[in-house]
């Protein structure tokens, strides 16, 4: 390429080298290099944008307007200073054009993706909504799902798209509070689930310790609901009457008129815990009260569980002579045919229940909690705030009313009742739980342990077999035993011809003795599950006031031991012995064992080998430590 002509002689531009072309190509190339250096385009669109942008930069640098502006600029400088600027004018022109070209090119390339994303929204539909996670209690899971759906439907992300979607799941509230305090580490991800931005724990009882946290949390009471006595209509006609009676008077009326009362287990249900507090505070002697409430559960064939468990069992054909202690909210959901939890099969006409409002009842204050994790995105934060704010709008209050809760909005058709929704101080509630533990009836429990061949399989990463893990969990469970509790231990299949390792008795038994016996067993053989259950239930049955239960720990299903499912069911139903099942390994609560449990007011608990000791302990703490 020849050198450029003397810049001082304008005519040279016409016959000399094409200066415009030189600078056009140079600017375009530099622009392209600049764009590519930001990252090599990965799509056709990207390449297209980069090349068009670079060419546009080159053109911009060459435009006549720019040339004239530059000329003017040089003229001004020449007038001001008498330097011979023409000498370097060419170089300066090139630099100025280069800068300008690059600026134009970059502006174009940066603007392109935005234009494309706008076009995409028009063509491709809504972008993914901001996903949030909401933890709640097992009792409030269906309620929280309904609220989350209503919010998502309402949330506006522009163009009619949804701005937010909420994943709702259940986690123990006390453990959730602790996990939030500890920053929700890997162990909490595995044991509880994803890290939540939102939490509906049911009561501010669980949020008391959150104020001193390093994470910014916001606790807003948004609604309330009183704890009521849900009675079949017959019951209300025989003495429960209008709402001027206390819990003590209502329980007394039940005694006189021949109906009983069942209450959710205070250890797993906040409703049960608060109701117990109110009843004890009403002056009822705990031992007497617990005896009557236990009768209510047994007579109604009701499970030891939370309020949804009680309502679900009632929905499936409850007895007419048992009233249930539940929140008004869950009763409304029952009456409105809403879901009563995942394990509860929907369908069928629900037997009617009506609310009786004790004058000295407590309630839930239903806080909505937002956890402002420091590493959350601005959008996640904004949508979490939006959920709390929405609960306080007419829309949100309507959604709360639709799930049966009372809000600040008057005008609902719910009767005006006085109740305290703020939880009693934590130490008082703890004292109530202590008193309950002392007053409840003792347990008469037989544990049947699966010693079949499959239990000899190793458990990942522990170096122990399934049987070792189970045996350790059983020995451990003896810690939970109170002085009046009875315990027995069977093995199936028979070990050396005998299945009774320890007969049921109230005799003290050390963990060591149990361990020694268990250690001597080598798991082998089939799984005569049905035969064992059919024989064990009559063995537990005794004429005592104790809660009677068979706990079966198994890693598989029955292997043709004799009786059929139906025969076992016939044999164990209505015996007053609850069958609990801990299903591990290949066993499942989706199968027949769950049916056995359900038919007797027991439960089936699916567990991994990690969570097995906890699952066994949970069941025994429901049953034991009675007076």
């Amino acid at each position, binding site marked *: *390429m020849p*050198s*450029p002509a003397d810049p001082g002689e304008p005519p040279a531009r016409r016959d000399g080298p094409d200066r415009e072309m*030189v600078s056009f*190509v*140079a600017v375009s190339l*530099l622009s392209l290099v600049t764009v*590519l*250096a930001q*990252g090599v385009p*990965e799509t056709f669109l990207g390449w297209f944008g980069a090349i068009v942008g670079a060419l546009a930069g080159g053109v911009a640098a060459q435009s006549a307007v720019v040339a004239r502006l530059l000329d003017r600029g040089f003229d001004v400088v020449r007038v001001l200073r008498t330097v011979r600027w023409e*000498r*370097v004018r*060419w*170089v*300066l022109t*090139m*630099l100025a054009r280069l800068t300008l070209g690059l600026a134009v090119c970059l502006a174009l390339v940066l603007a392109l993706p935005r234009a494309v994303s706008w076009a995409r929204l028009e063509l*491709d*539909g809504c*972008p*993914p909504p*901001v*996903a949030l*996670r909401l933890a709640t209690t097992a009792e409030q899971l269906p309620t929280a799902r309904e609220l989350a759906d209503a919010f998502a439907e309402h949330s506006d992300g522009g*163009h*009619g*798209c949804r701005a937010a979607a909420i*994943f709702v*799941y259940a986690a123990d509230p006390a453990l959730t509070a602790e996990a939030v305090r500890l920053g929700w580490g*890997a162990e909490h*991800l*595995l*044991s*509880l*689930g*994803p890290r939540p931005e939102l939490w509906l724990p049911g009561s501010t009882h669980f949020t008391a310790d959150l104020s001193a946290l390093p994470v910014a949390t916001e606790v807003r009471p948004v609604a309330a609901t009183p704890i009521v006595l849900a009675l079949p209509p017959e019951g209300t006609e025989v003495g429960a009457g209008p709402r001027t009676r206390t819990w003590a008077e209502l329980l007394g009326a039940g005694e006189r008129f021949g109906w009983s009362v069942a209450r959710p287990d205070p250890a797993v249900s906040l409703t049960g815990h608060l109701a117990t507090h109110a009843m004890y505070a009403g002056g009822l002697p705990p031992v007497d009260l617990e005896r009557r409430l236990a009768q209510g559960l047994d007579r109604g064939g009701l499970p030891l569980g939370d309020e949804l468990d009680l309502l679900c069992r009632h929905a499936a054909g409850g007895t007419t002579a048992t009233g249930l202690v539940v929140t008004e909210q869950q009763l409304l959901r029952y009456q409105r045919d809403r879901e009563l939890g995942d394990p509860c*099969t929907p369908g069928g006409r629900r037997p009617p229940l009506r609310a009786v409002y004790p004058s000295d009842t407590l309630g839930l204050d239903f806080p909505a909690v937002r956890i402002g994790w420091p590493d*959350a995105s601005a*959008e*996640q934060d904004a949508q979490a705030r939006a959920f709390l704010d929405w609960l306080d709008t007419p829309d949100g209050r309507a959604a709360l009313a639709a799930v049966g809760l009372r809000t600040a909005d008057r005008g609902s058709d719910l009767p005006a009742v006085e109740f305290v929704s703020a939880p009693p101080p934590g130490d008082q509630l703890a004292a109530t739980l202590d008193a309950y533990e002392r007053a409840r009836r003792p347990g008469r429990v037989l544990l049947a342990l699966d010693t*079949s*061949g499959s239990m000899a399989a190793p458990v*990942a*990463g522990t170096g122990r077999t399934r049987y070792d893990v189970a045996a350790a969990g059983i020995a451990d469970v003896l810690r939970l035993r109170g002085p009046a509790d009875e315990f027995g231990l069977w093995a199936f299949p028979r070990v050396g011809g005998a299945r009774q390792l320890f007969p049921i008795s109230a005799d003290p038994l050390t963990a060591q003795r149990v361990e020694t016996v268990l250690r001597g067993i080598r798991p082998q*053989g*089939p*799984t005569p599950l049905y035969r064992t259950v059919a024989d064990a239930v009559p063995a537990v049955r005794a004429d005592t006031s104790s809660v009677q239960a068979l706990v079966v720990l198994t890693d*598989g*299903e029955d*292997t*043709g031991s004799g009786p*059929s*499912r139906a025969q076992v069911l016939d044999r164990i139903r209505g015996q007053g012995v609850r069958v609990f099942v801990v299903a591990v390994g*290949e066993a*499942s609560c*989706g*199968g*027949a064992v769950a049916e056995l449990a359900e038919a007797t007011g027991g439960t089936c608990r699916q567990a*991994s080998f990690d969570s097995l000791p906890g699952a066994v302990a949970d069941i025994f703490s429901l049953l034991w430590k009675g007076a």
Partner: protein
Amino acid sequence: MTGALLGGVRAEVGRHRTTAVGVAGLAVGLVAGYLAAVVLAAPAPRPGALEPGELIVLSGADESTGGQRRALIEQWNADPRWPDARLVEVGGGADAHRAEMVRRAQAGGGGVDVYNLDVTWTAEFAEAGWIRPLDESATDTSGFLDKPLATCRYDGRLWALPFNTDAGLLFYHEDLTGPEPPTNLAGIRTITNEVFARPGGPPAGLEAGYTGQLRDYEGLTVNALEAIWAAGGDVVDGDGEVVVDSPATRAALTQLALGMTEGNPRAVLPASLGFDERAGTLAFQDRRVLFMRNWPVAYSQLVSAEAGAAPLRIGTQPITDSVLGGQNLALAAGTDQPEAALRLVEFLTGERSQQLLFERGGFAATRELVYRDAGVRESFPYADDLLVAVQAARLRPVTPRYAQFSEVFRRGVGYALRHGGRLPDGFADALRAALSGSPGGPRLP
């Protein structure tokens, strides 16, 4: 061209050394410095060494026998050349796992380097920019089975490597049905009637012919798709068009629905409407049914439940048009260790790892060679059937809105199963709305 430019400048300098040299030098310096700056600031090419720092793999809970995924990561960690990796597991099932992954992705990464994605999530994560594409020219994809590898592709690019695969098998009680199982529900009904009509009556406890996973969760999507495909129908065709409203679809769903309500014995166990994989396996093991559709992992459960007892005579047969299951490992878009993460993914999907995962954990391998291994074939007599099923399996609709699609599809199919096979009004439109993400969203009864 730049040379010409510089040549021009040089000439200029030569002629007007005294006045122009400073300005021209400045110009050259500026341009050269600028070029050097942009080139040096560009992303560095693949270096030889792996970036240091702990690699985080976010996955669902590893419930395999022996926690084989955890064990494999420990093997990786035992090699001092590689940075340590940690498997972070999310409990609570697939939806909970996805919720945690989306949380981190939407917050800009959350420290994750590798996501373990269900095969149906690849498109969503790719489209949202939460995972980074793999450079196919630099990634060895040879040896992978075609179908699992296909679930790693979206929009013409490779986004992941297949970790484990899955395809449905038809299980049957060979002692009752004989060794030649039928290939469709009509055949199952025939054999069921035969077994019940045998002299001496049916075996105790036998209730119906067939069971599958018809509870309202992803299992229902899988079972319904397979039924529709088996009848020659489809839900979304190759061009992404919704073609669900066809005689074949109606026939397939009607057959399933009526199988639960008509005939004695029933061709389909009515309780299947509440069954997931585990519950179906138990019903089959209890010999309440003759046939069961399930994933191969059910085989190990059936066998280990039988330890010590008389062995079950269980036959398996590949399902002709099975849904392809499995999981893929993808690099998080926000990872600051892309090289190391890629190496880890290559390790976990490599031949040796695939063999260990299959042999010890029962995860169906994504590499064909593993199926030829003598040890594998001995432990898993269904290995041949599985390989056939995987090779013939079909992908669920590939769409970034798969979750919404599946939810609407299940709602419609669930309705059909409870209404004698009748599709709900507006089913096809609701599916279209779900797939296109149209504002307002899908509506179904």
